[in-house]
């Protein structure tokens, strides 16, 4: 009992130090510019468990993200529209694929060469 009390003291000391540490790190990093939603989770799940991350499931989650981003008035991150476009392409929906590859290009002109490559393939 006595030693347990001692241990918990040590433990709370560590927590205080950890909190200090997080505050210190927190001052190095600021809040996010983009609405991230499910994008990175999707990237992870599709490699780990492809059955749970079919194009249909991904499209549904990403469409929900588009709504949420709009309601928060935050832009979607680089690669988001391109990834969504490629999911539509995978299930043969060329029109939607074209729409989102174009959206990527419009939001981020740096992607122009790659997006044009995909757009050309659709035609």
């Amino acid at each position, binding site marked *: 009992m006595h030693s*347990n009390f001692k*241990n*918990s003291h040590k*433990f709370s*000391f*560590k927590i205080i*130090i*950890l909190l*200090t*540490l997080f505050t*210190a*790190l927190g001052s*190095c*990093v*600021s*809040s*996010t*510019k*983009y609405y*991230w939603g499910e*994008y*990175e*989770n999707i*990237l*992870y799940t*599709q*490699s*780990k468990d492809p059955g749970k991350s079919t194009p249909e499931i991904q499209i549904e989650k990403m469409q929900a993200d588009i709504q949420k981003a709009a309601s928060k008035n935050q832009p979607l*991150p*680089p*690669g*988001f529209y*391109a*990834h969504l476009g*490629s999911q539509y392409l995978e299930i043969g929906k060329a029109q939607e694929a074209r729409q989102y590859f174009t959206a*990527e290009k419009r939001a*981020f002109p*740096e*992607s*122009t*060469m*790659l997006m044009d*490559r995909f757009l050309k393939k659709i035609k």
Partner: protein
Amino acid sequence: MIFSNFKKVTLLTTFNFFLGTTFFLLLGCATPKNYDKFRAANPKSILVLPPKNQSTDVRGTYSFLSTVTMPIAEKGFYVFPVSVVDQMMKENGLPSANEMHEVSLKKIKEIINPDAVLYINLEQYGTKFVVIQSQTTVVASGKLVSTASGQVLWEGRIEKVVASSNGGGGLGGLLVSAMVSQAINSSVDYAHDVSIIASQELFMTEGQGLVNGPYKTVSTK
């Protein structure tokens, strides 16, 4: 002068391990890298190739790859869609990260046109179990190379070790919880969570990570 340094060092070593870590991290914030080449090249877009994986866990490559877009994009760069590019390369006869890392900068520039390519090497990835606690380690190093000049613009390395031990409950309780956490961890891929932290620290730590890119809005602090 030498003496006063010596004093500082011995003082530090007598401190608790956690305090030492705190000081180390603060120092990490305080002594910045040389960013002259990075600033001069002024890259706007970054292509991140799937990391080479030196660990024994095959999940490492795509687990770590899924964590890099956020920190790099939040630093203000355009990040090419990592999975779309990966798939395109596979369809073009490059089955794994090792082959993708061998593609010439010229060819990458011709096809995708990024200002810089980020090569990541995943040195360690996974969880070890030591009787009553588990230890998850992710070690990764990154190298950012300009596609225009071939110059290395930035290099960084991160070592992240997270130990999970369980306070209280007596020895029996500890053993049971260790067995439970082993069972959970081996299916849950705890190293993925550690990768998210590792990735953010690698790219976003002020003075150590990337410099701010063109999409970075003025600080919200």
